[in-house]
Every structure is written in structure tokens, then in C-alpha cells.
């Protein structure tokens, strides 16, 4: 009985408040209403979560085939039918909504004046429309004890209306199920029951979801009111997703960070790293003015003086041998900063500029570009994926969220790393191998795949397999990837840090090629792809022309006389912190551009110039899928600090370099975009680009690791609340039970570790998630700064 004979089969027509709408069969009333701008009040419903229909706020009047439903129905779970008539504002509907509201307010404290949610509260808003002016409830209200959920989320559980959005979020999206609805009826409480807190890397999203002031932002608490803040759109500065966020600021000071909706990128979620790292903008060690070394002392300078001295020093080295200058730049610097630095360096005659701080092996020098090789949103539709050396859940939280969706839908998500990780869904296969054996494992998968697709023997593979035959697990991985309609094969942070990373990347590319899969390669940083586009890499200019510079790894191994360091702390941010620092300490001239000044910098630098931190600089990040996202700065940088692109522009002029007359970042952006569009798609490495000789391995007790989730860059390491979560803090070197036994180490023992340099004392853990003969010890944690390569030999002493 279709109202309209031309209507497609999967469409139905419904009438809401007198207007007709066409919608797909199976949609709910609230979905159709939302899509057409009809307001239906709701608390428990959220478009990204399942609908339990427990708040009853969305009751509407329904008529089907001319017959009215006996009572109002919840719009959030009632499916539409052809010819259905819905009244959201009939007397009966409105009275139902008002009655529900009255019940919801019975136990609510109505403490809006002291509630952070005031002014942006769904309960407050709806109470205004549907509440009574006067409460008829004179009995005692219930009070609920608050639970400490950790440093990020504040609780005021008496305000909770039991919509269970937070419970469902942690179940369905975060996959950690840390909160539950405990007890019953009037005694219902939301909590963990045992005081474990919530530790999901996406935990902050419950703050946005909570329709009342029960769950609020802890560091932001009581610091501003919703109506006095201005919202400032920008982009998350920590991972390759480029989550769309807004900074909420008062007179240029950032008070908090919230997500902006972008279905193609972050949907409506953001990771805690992007939400809470803004605290780092206001860290105590922000550098206020340019300073220069004067013997043993540090002298403040004005900008002109400081830049002239820097220009003079750079010119002097360049005049003798420009290849003695190397620039290390953060992979989270903006595209404009990276591009101008590239032009400065090339203008001085040096090609030694690099953003790949954590790439230990650059033997595959001039081919692979970073990136995902497919749209982020499409990853949730893959049928299979292989993640090599990537704890995606921590490295790229919202990519993991997409892959998790695929996995829960039946896709085979598989991983190979030096340990099992704490995933928030079940992988189809998790292969664990000693770091020295990773290449062999990949080669065995490739060999199994070549056999499966009938490609026969792949040239060069034997050097990695050593003639071994693939096992059942390798075959399973290979077959699933080949059989998949859409597949992703991706290497991650741990591959970048690996001494034989070039082999691993080539093998990963080979597997992707054999499987006909998308090929991704993601390291740390918000703009690693941008660095590549901007030519802030030693082997290619921004116009795509080849160059023969030295990588970070090469300028650590073969130290230069002069270094330019932009927005990083080498002891944390380079793959080999100890060696990076040694190189800087031995250099004649070190110029540091940094928002912060540290003790370490005072030891190795000669001039330190204060630049704007995240939020204080306009610019562009290019995310993993190649999306250019441009943002403006919120306010002036602190003190005398200046946005780095301006500093580089002035420096370019002082060095009398051509074409440094930019007035705004968009001019730089436009110039670079022109260069980029003239180039074809970059080649993404591949088996052809494999190193001539396979890397042989360390053959001893080896440190393995990745970059800790809250240790990726200087900003997040100063995010005070994040640093108090269990994901940060002191490193716990972790060993497999067999290795621990061999070395006589017990869980909880204090041990000394060294990698040839100074030793650190840390408390050990024993975990059977690890491969034998390795010590898991990520970078970016307390206690790991002085150590050597994240992947390299390590010694252990019991103390």
C-alpha cells in the first residue's frame, strides 16, 4: 500500500506534524525527524549508539492506517511504516513528555548554578521547554556517592539521569565496558563498582555524551562558563588522523578541547590525547624570549639580535661546507613551517632536512611516502587487514576505532609485532616474533601468499625466509588477505623504530602488492605526510625533484657541525635519544626553535628561539589519507614567542634568500599546493626498493618498543592530566616469563638497564605477551630519556 506509485520499494512516506517525508524502510521516527530538522526531545538516544529507549523523553503520538496507537510511543526505537502519521506536538505527546520530564527531575539536584554543564546541558534545555515552573516533589531526594574515575573525567553522580549513554559508549565504541548500571530501580547508580576508573584512550567522549552534568571535564572544571568561551576550529596535533576539534577559549586562553563532527575523519569522537594535551600550551617551561649562550650563562636577546646571530652562524658554516648543517623538524610541525624550513636549508645549500625523527633505518631512502593508502572512512569496510608493528589502538586511536568496527562485522584484522597488545576487540590472528625475526615472519607470509596466488617464487624472498616453509598461521594470514574484497596492509610506529625497518617496509609493500591490498605506512606525528609533501625530507624537494641529503638517522650516525632543531626533544623524540643528544652536544652550533626550554637544551644549544605552541600558530596538517586541513591560530603566542613560519620568513630574508616575502601562511600553503598538484601520485616504496642486503639482527637481548601514547611529542608530554593516567608515568620494562627466569628477574623487581650509555633503574614486569629475549620498553615515558635506540641491544642487571 504505497502512498505514491512511483516510490521505490525501499522507501516509505510518513507524515510528521503535518509534513510528508520520504525515508528508507527500517529507519526510526527520530532518524527521519532529525534528518528533516524536526525536534524531538531525547536523552538516551544517540545516533552513534544502540537505542535502549530507557528515558522515555521522546514519546510521540502515532497513527497507522488511520488507527491511533493506544499510547504514545518512543520515537527512538519505533520503526517507520508507509502512511504512518506522527505527531510530536499533540496534546497527548506533549503531556507524556512533560510527565517524563517531571519524573526525571524528581531526583535531580537542580544545582545548575554550581554545575559545569550549566548553559550547555540537555536536561536544562529540555526542562526549560517541558518542565514545570514549580516542583511538586517535596520528599527527600536521593544522593549518590561520587566515584573517582581518574584524572580526566569528573563525576557528580547525583545528577545522573541513567540514560546509559556513557555505559553504551564504553561498551560499543571504546570496547572496554568499564562502566555499568549497578543496583536497581531508585537505587540505580552508574559506576565501575570496584573503583577501577576508566582508562579507555577515548574516555573523554563520555563527557560530550552525558546529557547532564554527571560526567564533566576534570581539568577544565570551574574554569569557565560555556557562554563566555569562543569556539575556534582546528585540527588534532598528535596523530595521522587529523581529528577535527574546536578549542574553546577565553581571551586567547584555551580552556578545553571538544570534537567537531566530521564523518570522513573522526565522526563525532576524539582521542583523549587530542582533548587534554592543550594543557601543555601553558606548561611552566614555556620559553618567553630568545636566549643565547654566553660562555656558561644564558643571555636574553631581542628577536632582531637573535635572528641576526643565527643567520650569521648558519652562513658561516654554509660558506665552508653546507652539508655540515642538518635540520631536524617535528613531524607535527605545520606544513608551512616544514616547507619554509626546507627552503631555508636548501637555500643554504644543504639537503639534510628530515621529519622522520623515529625512523631508525633509512636504507630505503628515496621512495616510501607515509600515509594510509586509502580513505580513513573506508577502513571500516575492509574485509581483512594486517597491522605490522602497530599498536593502532594507541598510535592512531580513531583508525583503530574504524578497524574495530570492521572486525566486529566479521573482517579478519590481524597483527604482527614483538608482543601481543591490549586490543579492544578480538583479532583474528596476532603473531608475535622476536624483533630479529619480524622480517622472516613477513617473508613467510609473502611466500605463502605467492604460492596461494600462483606467483611462484618471488625473487629476493629467499634471503629473508632462509628457505623455511610457511606455517599454518602464515598461510591463514596470506589467504585471508588475498580472499578479501578490500584489504589493508599497514606498517606502524614499531617498524619506523626498527633497525631493519627498510626490510620490513619492503616486505609489507610486497604483501600488499601480492594481495592487491591498500598499502599504508604510518609513523608518529600529525603531519608526517605533510613533511614529505613539503620536501622536509632529505631525498626529495617540494617539487618532487630528487635530492641526496642525509636523514636524521644518518646525521646521528655521522654527526654534523651544525644542527637546526625545530620543536622536539631529541632525547625523547628521536629513535635513539642518547645518540641524538651526543651528536648535538658535540656540534659547534645548535640552533633550537622550541616553545619550551629544557635543561637538556641548555646543555646542547647555542641559541634557543621561542616559537608558538599548538593553537598559537596558523597552518595546515595533511592527514594519513592526504587530506589538507588548514586552521588559524587562537591568540598570540605566550611572551615574545612567534609563530615559527614568521621566524623562518625573517630568517630567509636575513639570509638574502629568494622568494621569502610571504605575508600569511595561506600564501605559503598556496605555493606548496601548486607544486604538489603538478606532481603525479608518489610511488609508495615497494619490493623493488628493498635494501641490497637484509639486516641481520642483533642476536642478543634486545629492547623492543614503540612510542608511548602520551609520550609522542613535547606538547602531550606536558599534558598534566594525561601524564597522571596509567598510560603515562614511569616506564615498566617488561620481559617474557622465560627470559625473566633466565635473567633471574621477578615481576616487580627493580632492575638496572643500559644500552651502552648511562643506566636507569626501573621496576620490571613479567608478561607472557612478549617474545622471548626482548625487553619491552617504549619511548616517551619517565625513565627512558637517557637510553639508546628503542630497538637495539640492552643490558639488564638486577639491583
Amino acid at each position, binding site marked *: 500500500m504505497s502512498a505514491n506509485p512511483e516510490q521505490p520499494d525501499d522507501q516509505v512516506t510518513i507524515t510528521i506534524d503535518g509534513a510528508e517525508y520520504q525515508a528508507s524502510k527500517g529507519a526510526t521516527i527520530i532518524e527521519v525527524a532529525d534528518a528533516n530538522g524536526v525536534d524531538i526531545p531525547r536523552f538516551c538516544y544517540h545516533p552513534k549508539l544502540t537505542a535502549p529507549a530507557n528515558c522515555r523523553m521522546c514519546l510521540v503520538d502515532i497513527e497507522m492506517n488511520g488507527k491511533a496507537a493506544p499510547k504514545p510511543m518512543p520515537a527512538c526505537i519505533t520503526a517507520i511504516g508507509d502512511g504512518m502519521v506522527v505527531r510530536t506536538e499533540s496534546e497527548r505527546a506533549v503531556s507524556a513528555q512533560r510527565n517524563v520530564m517531571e519524573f526525571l527531575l524528581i531526583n535531580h539536584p537542580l544545582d545548575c548554578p554550581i554545575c559545569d554543564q550549566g548553559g550547555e546541558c540537555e536536561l536544562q534545555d529540555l526542562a526549560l521547554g517541558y518542565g514545570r515552573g514549580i516542583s511538586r516533589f517535596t520528599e527527600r531526594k536521593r544522593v549518590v556517592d561520587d566515584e573517582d574515575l581518574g584524572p580526566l573525567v569528573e563525576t557528580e553522580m547525583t545528577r545522573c539521569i541513567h540514560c546509559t549513554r556513557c555505559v553504551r559508549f564504553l561498551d560499543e565504541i571504546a570496547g*572496554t*565496558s*568499564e*562502566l*555499568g*548500571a*549497578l*543496583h*536497581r530501580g531508585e537505587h540505580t547508580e552508574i559506576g*565501575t*563498582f*570496584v573503583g577501577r576508573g576508566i582508562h579507555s584512550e577515548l574516555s573523554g567522549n563520555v563527557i560530550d555524551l552525558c546529557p547532564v552534568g554527571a560526567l564533566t571535564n576534570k581539568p577544565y572544571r570551574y574554569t569557565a562558563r560555556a557562554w563566555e568561551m569562543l569556539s575556534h576550529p582546528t585540527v588534532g596535533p598528535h596523530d595521522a588522523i587529523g581529528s577535527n576539534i574546536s578549542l574553546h577559549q577565553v581571551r586567547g586562553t584555551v580552556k578545553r578541547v571538544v570534537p567537531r563532527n566530521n564523518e570522513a575523519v573522526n565522526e563525532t569522537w576524539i582521542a583523549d590525547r587530542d582533548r587534554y594535551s592543550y594543557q601543555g600550551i601553558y606548561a611552566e617551561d614555556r620559553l618567553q624570549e630568545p636566549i643565547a649562550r654566553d660562555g656558561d650563562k644564558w643571555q636574553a636577546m631581542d628577536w632582531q639580535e637573535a635572528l641576526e646571530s643565527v643567520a650569521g652562524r648558519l652562513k658561516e658554516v654554509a660558506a665552508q661546507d653546507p652539508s655540515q648543517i642538518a635540520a631536524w623538524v617535528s613531524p607535527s610541525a605545520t606544513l608551512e613551517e616544514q616547507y619554509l624550513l626546507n627552503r631555508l636549508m636548501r637555500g643554504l645549500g644543504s639537503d639534510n632536512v628530515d621529519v622522520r625523527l623515529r625512523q631508525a633505518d633509512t636504507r630505503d631512502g628515496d621512495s616510501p611516502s607515509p600515509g594510509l593508502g586509502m580513505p580513513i572512512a573506508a577502513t571500516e569496510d575492509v574485509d581483512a587487514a594486517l597491522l605490522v608493528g602497530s599498536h593502532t589502538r594507541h598510535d592512531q586511536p580513531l583508525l583503530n576505532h574504524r578497524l574495530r568496527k570492521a572486525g566486529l562485522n566479521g573482517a579478519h584484522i590481524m597483527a604482527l609485532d614483538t608482543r601481543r597488545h591490549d586490543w579492544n576487540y578480538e583479532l583474528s590472528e596476532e603473531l608475535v616474533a622476536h624483533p630479529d625475526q619480524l622480517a622472516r615472519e613477513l617473508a613467510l607470509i609473502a611466500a605463502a601468499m605467492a604460492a596461494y596466488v600462483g606467483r611462484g617464487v618471488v625473487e629476493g624472498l629467499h634471503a629473508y625466509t632462509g628457505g623455511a616453509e610457511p606455517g599454518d598461521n602464515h598461510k591463514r594470514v596470506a589467504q585471508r588477505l588475498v580472499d578479501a574484497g578490500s584489504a589493508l596492509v599497514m606498517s606502524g610506529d614499531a617498524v619506523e623504530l626498527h633497525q631493519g625497518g627498510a626490510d620490513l617496509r619492503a616486505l609489507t609493500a610486497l604483501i600488499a602488492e601480492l594481495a592487491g591490498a591498500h598499502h599504508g605506512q604510518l609513523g608518529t606525528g600529525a603531519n608526517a605526510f605533510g613533511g614529505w609533501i613539503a620536501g622536509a625530507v632529505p631525498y626529495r624537494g617540494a617539487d618532487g625533484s630528487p635530492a641526496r641529503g642525509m636523514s636524521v638517522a644518518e646525521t646521528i650516525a655521522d654527526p654534523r657541525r651544525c644542527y637546526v632543531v625545530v620543536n622536539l626533544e631529541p632525547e625523547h623524540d628521536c629513535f635513539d635519544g642518547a645518540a641524538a643528544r651526543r651528536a648535538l652536544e658535540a656540534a659547534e652550533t645548535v640552533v633550537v626553535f622550541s616553545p619550551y626550554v629544557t635543561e637538556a637544551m641548555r646543555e646542547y644549544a647555542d641559541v634557543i628561539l621561542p616559537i608558538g605552541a599548538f593553537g598559537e600558530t596558523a597552518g595546515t596538517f595533511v592527514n594519513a589519507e592526504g587530506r589538507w586541513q588548514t586552521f588559524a591560530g587562537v591568540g598570540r603566542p605566550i611572551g615574545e614567542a612567534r609563530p615559527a613560519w614568521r621566524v623562518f620568513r625573517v630568517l630567509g630574508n636575513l639570509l638574502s634568500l629568494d622568494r621569502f616575502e610571504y605575508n600569511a601562511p595561506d600564501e605559503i600553503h598556496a605555493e606548496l599546493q601548486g607544486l604538489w598538484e603538478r606532481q603525479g601520485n608518489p610511488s609508495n616504496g615497494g619490493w623493488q626498493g628493498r635494501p641490497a642486503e637484509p639486516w641481520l639482527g642483533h642476536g642478543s637481548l634486545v629492547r623492543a618498543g614503540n612510542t608511548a601514547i602520551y609520550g609522542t611529542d613535547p606538547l602531550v608530554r606536558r599534558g598534566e592530566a594525561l601524564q597522571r593516567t596509567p598510560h603515562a608515568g614511569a616506564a615498566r620494562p617488561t620481559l617474557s*616469563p622465560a627470559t625473566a627466569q633466565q635473567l633471574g628477574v621477578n*615481576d616487580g623487581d627493580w632492575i638496572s638497564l643500559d644500552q651502552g650509555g648511562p643506566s636507569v633503574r626501573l621496576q620490571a614486569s*613479567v*608478561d*607472557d605477551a612478549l617474545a622471548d629475549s626482548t625487553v619491552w620498553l617504549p619511548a616517551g615515558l619517565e625513565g627512558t630519556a637517557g637510553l639508546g635506540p628503542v630497538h637495539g641491544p640492552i643490558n639488564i642487571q638486577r639491583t
Partner: protein
Amino acid sequence: MTSQRLAYTYLSDHQREAIDSWRARFPDHDQGRQSAVIQALHIAQEGNGGWLSQQMLDAVADYLELTPVRVYEVATFYSMFHLHPVGRHKVNICQNISCMLCGSDELVRHIEQHLGIGLGETTADGRITLVPEDECLAACTGAPMMLVDEHYYTDLTPEKATAILDSLE
């Protein structure tokens, strides 16, 4: 972690077998296994002196491969699960509407005096726990009534009730 699985530390072979038989009746996925929680908690509670410790709850979650909070929700929802140590006998005096109209308030007062404990407390000799107020126990025709362990005693008077309690070991 390498620690021994909780289920094998806190649940006996016999208990695990009993849980298996319930588990087998439901589909083997999260929601399916959730259906076995109530029965598993009964089994665990019985073998643990009539109450469920935190470890017991975690052991049940571990054994059913559920996240612990799913088990906490069930254990706190039903008043038949006890989350603190209890006496040898659990006495639940119904105080819902029918029983109240038929004199449960007086019954409670009398029993409290007789045992020297309040609702929610356990006698010093560990013999009896008075379970706090509960829902209607569905024996309104015999109001006022009480539940002693698994047995219903209906049409009570204070004298009848104390006699029953005195006969408990």
C-alpha cells in the same frame, strides 16, 4: 599478565562443571554467555558460605569470558545475591504492601528485638542474617510472610516467627 586465571583459583572443578551445563544452553557469544550469569552466581554463592566476594564475581566473569562489570550489574541488581558475609541462615521478612497491611512492621520489630540485631545485620553467633527490605515475595495470600533460606513461612504472628527462628541451627 601471567597470573593464574581467577576462575581456576576461586571456583572448584565441581562449580565450573555446573556452570558449564548452564553455559551450554545459550549461544556462545557475549550476550549468550550473559544469560548464564545468574545461574553461575548462584553456584558461586552457594560454594562460598552464601555470599559473593569481589574475587568470586571476577572469577565468574573470567570463567564466562565477560567483562567484570557485566557480572557486577547482575549481582547488584538481584537482592538474592549477597555481597557481604552472611550468617548460616538468611531471613527475609517481606515488608511490601500486602505484608505491611497485615502487620509486617510489628513482625520486624519483634524479630529484631528477639535476635538483638537490625535489618541487614547478622547475629553474633553467625546463625542468622536479617536481609534488608526487599520486593514483594509473591506470597501475598499468606501475608505477612517471611523467606528463610529457600522456604516460605506464611500467615505469621510474632510468636510463630520467633519459634521458627529459634529452631534454626
